């Protein structure tokens, strides 16, 4: 019980950001869950580690929202895996969240630089 609660909390904390990162990853083409986690990890220089316990719920949530769709395909290593593809709605959502993200990071950055004197 406790464990499950903590997973849920982490999903909530990361939710918007993780969703955005997943959608961003899929911009490069269809990818499976493992591929997405590897991409985020290596793309961020090992800074961002995506827990599988957050990744899969997020993928399924995105699929339910209609932002990604999935199909079973053979990987390059002859491994059958579930590939996720960005949908048109997903693309739109991604640009919206990207914009929001940029506004937020700018605002936060400004705030962090703020030294007490009005600009």
């Amino acid at each position, binding site marked *: *019980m406790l464990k499950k609660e903590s997973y849920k909390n982490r999903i909530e904390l990361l939710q918007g950001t993780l969703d955005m990162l997943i959608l961003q990853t899929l911009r490069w083409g269809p990818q*499976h*869950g493992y591929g997405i986690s590897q991409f985020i990890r290596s793309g961020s220089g090992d800074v961002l580690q995506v827990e*599988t316990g957050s990744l899969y*719920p997020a993928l399924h949530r995105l699929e339910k929202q209609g932002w990604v769709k999935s199909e079973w395909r053979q990987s390059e290593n002859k491994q059958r895996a579930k590939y996720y593809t960005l949908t048109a709605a997903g693309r739109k959502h991604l640009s919206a969240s990207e914009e929001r993200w940029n506004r937020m990071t700018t605002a936060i950055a400004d705030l962090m630089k703020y030294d007490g004197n009005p600009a």
Partner: protein
Amino acid sequence: MKMSPWRRWSRWRKRDSEIRLEIEAHLAMLKHDLIERGATPERAELEAQREFGNRTLIAEVTREMWGWTWFERFGRNLLFGLRSLWKSPGFVAAAILIMVLGVGANTAVFSVVHELLIRPLPYRDADSIVEVAAAYKPRNELLLVSAADFQDYVSQNTTFAAMALYGKSPVPTRAGAVSEYADATMVSPQFFDVFQLRAARGRLFRIEDFPSSSFRAGVAVISDSYWRSRCGADPNILGRTLHVSSAPLTVIGVLPGQFSYPDKTEIWIPMNASVYGMSRGARNFRAVGRLKPKISIEAAQAQMSMIAAEVGKRFPTENRGIDVVLTPLRDHLVGDVRPSLLILFGAVGTILLIACVNLAGIVLVRTTARSQEMSMRLALGASRAHLWLQLMAESIVLAVPVTILSLLTAYAARRILLALASSEIRELGDLPLDGPILAFCIGLSILTIMLFSCVPAWHACRLNQSGGRIIGSAGTGRLRALLVVGEIALSVVLLAAGGLLAKSFYRLQSVDLGFRPENVLVMTASYPSGRWEDSIEATRFFSRLRAEVAALPGVTAVGAIRSLPGDDAWSYGGHVVNHRPRPGTTTPEMTRKTAYVEVAPGTFQTLGVPLIRGRDFADSDAYHGPSVAIINEELARLSYPNQDPVGRTIFCGLNERSFQGMRIVGVVGNIHQYGPAGPALPAIYMPHTQHPSFTTRMNLVVQSAREPAALVEAMRRKAHELSPDVPVRFTTLEAVLRENTATARVSAFLVGLLAALALCLAVVGIYGVMAYLVAQRHREIGVRIALGAGIGKVFSLVLREGGRLTLLGLVLGLLGAGGAARVLVSLLFEVQPHDPSVYAGISLLVVVVTFAAISLPAWRATRVDPMTALRLE
């Protein structure tokens, strides 16, 4: 989005396996990469597992994204419930058994109660249909209605929309090749209006169908079942001829569906009641009426009583003290079954209550035992709601078998109930699985199961999280003790009811009927008649048949009688002795209920009725001979006190000849004409040869040394040799009487059985409590023994505890029984509702049985080894 549960379930299943596959793929790829980076396969496997995390949990949270996981969670609870019940099969079996007994018995009785007392009668606006009967007020006695009175009732009332006279009898009828008995009812013009019926085929009676001055009608209407069973559902039935009592009747209509009023009538024949005589004393018919809309039965009753009183004033000789009694049709149909049925319902309800109390008791024991488990789960973070849910799931696991087994039990119990009951109830057939019955059974199952799950859940909520022990197990003990007191009290109430009914039934069985029903075979036969000459011919036929049967080997005595003892078809009226009454005068005898019956010579000997004075009838008492009669002792006592009635003349209202006076030739012993519960009425017996009747039906009674069944074929052959067109029916006098005491037998047997069951449950209950008590006080008892308490002392210590509970239960039960017995009054025969011997008897029984139940744990207490007990200290 609406989706069938099944589709949701299958989609859920598909998604579940897909997520698993997806996770497998992830792991495989992770492992693959690790191996590529140089790990050994074993290491890679472990590393991948570690890095991935808890697979089951991840699959679950992922699945939750799609919603509908309550289903899964509930399923898991269900599974858990099943598993935890599986671990204690003894407990489960006991719980199911107790619930099934309670629910099954209740469902069976409810199904009968529902059909007889609740289900609407199949007649349009049935609430406004009433049965109309006459009553002799001074003795509170219901009578049939005479045609003359009926005319006054109809013409003077303003409260009835329709009213009709009817009379029913089995009549020999030929639809095809053979003559059989059919149940026919003669009806007056408005009969079908009372029931607001329309014909399913053809038409019903018009006024011109009613004979104006003869007995014989020309047409008939038949029931749907008669049309199907006897006429082969002939589509051209209209216009076909039926031979009813050998008179040809044209079928003009078929009634719809189940209509068979009164009492499974198959053929309705129009009658002109006035043809049967307009004497006000000729009370020969039943009557039924429909109240006008918005007229209450009380208003109608008040008006009818007024009309009856007026008629009584105008005709004091025949009608003084005659009132009219209106009875709602359902009450009339259900009659004396209602009180016993309701008492039975009360008894099974009590059983259910006891079963629930017992159930609560054993659930408490189990809950106490499980308090460790519950505390652990609470400590590990389960919410109280979660515990509730789990315990509920356990109950739901039980609900299915309980409901199904209860229905099966109800099916069997209903069969037993019907097999014991009188013929009308037996007709109800097997358990109908319709809405109300199912709802009742399922509802009751759920109710008992709620109790089953609420006790432990409530208990669990009182657990504190820190310790495994429950707070106040002494409280549980006290609660259980209280439950047992309640159980004993309830079973004492049932035992008292059972005891009273059993004693009443015993009294009923030991009534001296005044005749011996053993080994009396009865053959009912009717001679085809239509004309007056046929009626006379019929008496000759029965005389010849009697002689032929008497000559059969093994036959020791033969007689014939119009109405059988124990049958309710006796005709009766007043009588006058010594001289014919002058018009306008009235004597006490005229208003007396005197039974009239036509018999053949030898009947008294066959039935074992003693001849006290004078002689029996003989073949010489023929149609053209002088009128003779035999009276019974009761009539002799009433009308000839301290005189010899033989040789006197008596007058009665059976027919014109009886009204002209008959010479008394003998006096016989009294018999209970209506069976043991009825009185021994004064009676006048007349030779059947002197009183030919349109009703040619007679009951040949045969006493034989042989098994009665062996005679049946020989008698049937003899009857058909004499006249091929005679329908016959066989029974035994004992069977007729059994039918008569059916209600008493059923109530005594069933309530007794339920009381025994209640006592068993109570005994199990008190045994459980005492055994628990001894186990709990094991150490204390050990210390006592170590300190020198003798075996007797320890034994009596436990006994005192148990005795207190028993006595408390007994006293409460006796108080309750005293109150409850009042509702039994109408069912009791020669037993007071507060019969001290019954109460003393059951008290003794309860004390003895519970003593036995307590002694076992008490004895076990004396075997406590003080050393073991002390070491535990």
